[in-house]
């Protein structure tokens, strides 16, 4: 039963009549919500319902980490990301480091070799110039280490209160290889799911400092450039790599859900195999969070054909960033589009995509 929703404002009186559709559902309404930025279902809906119809073109429709563009005989990858993390500096890094690593990683997840970066800044009036210097230095160091120049950029300043210190956008351009084309829609039943390291570090490191929840944790962000790791993987078993994803906002759970949906497959995880550092697990316990949904900035997920599993893991582990790589699950054909997890009891649970952000809970 449904009907028009007639209530008009939080301090309105009773609903006008029986037969009204229920409370305005979360997600509908005429404003952008924080949840729209969380990487979960609301984000997906926002893009699907508002951006895609207006911007529609085949390159965009793939909705990968970046897009593929043809330039003459070259296939290029282009990816953009905007960084709004607060606080600007956190254990293990700063917004600048995230901005460079994040976009380099998106380019890497497409299988591309990075060529250059551009960067745009929105600075808040009153931002400390010393802090700005530190952030810029982080970016310079990270770009230099990756061998990728920041070739152009832009800076704007807005009034106090309008930018949370600073926002940074980075766009990366890379060269695609003909023989190495991981994509989210290529996972097949029988493939294995590998994660390159322990999960949940970035999200917990930032949350502990940001939310005013007052927790002290010995956790640092894992922010890292994953390009060299991907290169090792490619060299060892390139043709067998089906998909690569860096599980940032929304965590491993969201990234795997996207792959499962895009490929029309099921992903089955082994709960006991998923590596979670003790401190991350403890922080998640205390706050009532699930590590599978916590952001990572230095971890990748690789979906690899079964026959290449051992060489993939070996190649990843040979790298410092991938030293703790491990298989965490496998791809099956049913139930399509769903991610499930086997618990220690032999029971099963679904690992869904969250509607919005994970919230600390008390219950």
């Amino acid at each position, binding site marked *: *039963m449904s009907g028009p*929703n007639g*209530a*008009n*404002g*939080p*301090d*309105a*009186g*009773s*609903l006008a009549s*029986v*037969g009204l559709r*229920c*409370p*305005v*559902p*979360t*997600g*509908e*309404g005429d*404003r*952008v*919500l*924080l*949840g729209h930025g969380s990487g979960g*279902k*609301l984000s997906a809906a926002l893009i699907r319902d508002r951006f895609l119809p207006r911007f529609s073109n085949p390159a965009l429709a793939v909705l990968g980490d970046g897009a593929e563009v043809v330039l003459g005989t070259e296939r290029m990858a282009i990816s953009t990301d905007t960084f709004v993390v607060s606080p600007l500096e956190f254990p293990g890094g700063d917004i600048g480091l995230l901005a460079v690593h994040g976009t380099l990683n998106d380019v890497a997840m497409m299988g591309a070799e990075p060529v250059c970066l551009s960067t745009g800044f929105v600075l808040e009036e009153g931002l400390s110039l010393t802090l700005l210097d530190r952030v810029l230095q982080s970016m310079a160091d990270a770009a230099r280490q990756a061998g990728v120049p920041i070739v152009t950029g832009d800076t704007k300043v807005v009034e106090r209160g309008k930018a949370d210190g600073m926002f940074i956008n980075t766009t990366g351009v890379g060269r695609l290889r003909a023989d190495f084309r991981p994509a989210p829609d290529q996972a097949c039943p029988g493939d294995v799911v590998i994660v390159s390291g322990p999960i949940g570090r970035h999200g917990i490191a930032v949350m502990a400092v940001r*939310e*005013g*929840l*007052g927790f002290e944790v010995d956790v640092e962000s894992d922010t890292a450039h994953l390009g060299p790791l991907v290169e090792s993987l490619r060299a060892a078993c390139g043709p067998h790599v089906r998909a690569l994803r860096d599980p940032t906002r929304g965590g491993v759970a969201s990234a795997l859900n996207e792959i499962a949906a895009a490929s029309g497959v099921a992903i*089955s995880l082994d709960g006991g195999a998923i590596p979670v550092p*003790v401190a991350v*697990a*403890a922080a998640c*316990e205390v*706050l*009532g969070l699930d590590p599978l949904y916590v952001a990572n900035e230095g971890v990748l997920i690789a979906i690899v054909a079964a026959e290449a599993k051992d060489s993939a893991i070996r190649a990843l582990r040979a790298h410092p960033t991938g030293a703790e790589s491990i298989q965490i699950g496998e791809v099956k054909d*049913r*139930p399509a589009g*769903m991610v*499930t997890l*086997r*618990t*220690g*009891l*032999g*029971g*099963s*649970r*679904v690992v*869904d995509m969250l*509607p*919005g952000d994970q*919230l*600390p*809970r*008390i*219950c």
Partner: protein
Amino acid sequence: MKFLSEYRDPALATSLVSRIRALSTRPWTLMEVCGGQTHTIVKQGILDVLGDSVEMIHGPGCPVCVTPLEQIDRALHLASRPEVIFTSFGDMLRVPGSDCDLFQVRAQGGEVRVVYSPLDALELARANPDREVVFFAVGFETTAPANAMAVWQARELGIKNFSVLVSHVTVPPAMTAILESSDNRVQGFLAAGHVCTVMGWSEYEPIADRYQVPIVVTGFEPVDILEGIWMAVKQLEEGRAQVENQYARSVRRDGNRQARDIVSQVFQLVDRQWRGIGEIPMSGLGLRDEFAAWDAEQKFDLHGIRATEPAECRAGDVLRGRIKPIECAEFGTTCTPENPLGAPMVSSEGACAAYWSYARYRGGDGGGEEFAEQSTETRS
């Protein structure tokens, strides 16, 4: 983590499951009261492994779920006031009121902040003397001591710009209401371990006696829950109806006397509306008169706010254990976590949300196909 990880030992859990199945000569129906226990049961796949020996009916142990629509609307109203900083536990942010939720109020410019502890809200009041800080004091008896202390301290320190919007409920009257209803199927209870850590278990003895139901005070980890179920089934098989304590590492018969003391000085028993269930007399806590200055309902004019519960949401039936979430026609169709019809779907502890997230019995035709992938392997 010490005193936590041990109770997740899969070998122990599995041996308890086998013992439960070996022990039961017939199927038994138990209710776990607490949302956190529901969460563990569904998330850990305990539903799968119990098979036919035990049916778990999920009780109304989600204080978020049972907070009346009217109280949510009051919260939303307060949060929209420009002078107010509205503070709350994370659980409440997505619960829909008549028109919107706290997230949407935030999007419209209201200041809404998540806090971990009520003392953090008090601290906010101290740091912002020109604003009014309101804290949404929701919970069962477990949270009452913390909420009481925030109000107590506000008085001690003379912090006037702090108030609480109270929505506290107590467990025993809810259990009695369930046992009194004509279609009750519950034969035994797992009582909420942290509620009893504060309250002790003496209030449950008359209930066990009068209704002849075993009540086992149980913890929250898989081994705790399974041991609690085992103890309850053992009682049922042996024809006993007693209160037993599985969660002995935290619960004593008298509970926490210091906590109960402060709670009774700050709060008093009142009649309370339980969303989806109706009014249960003397089942809630309200601030005592001497603390009226810190009661948001007295401080702000909220009387005009009334709400009617929507017709389709069967939250009440789910909360009373009358139906499982999957038996509601709206489940997975018109009611999903993105578009929740009622609180049990949006609250992280609600039974509907737990089923959706973990047990995924969904389908496009309402009620849906049962997802029974690996779980069939473990049934005998």
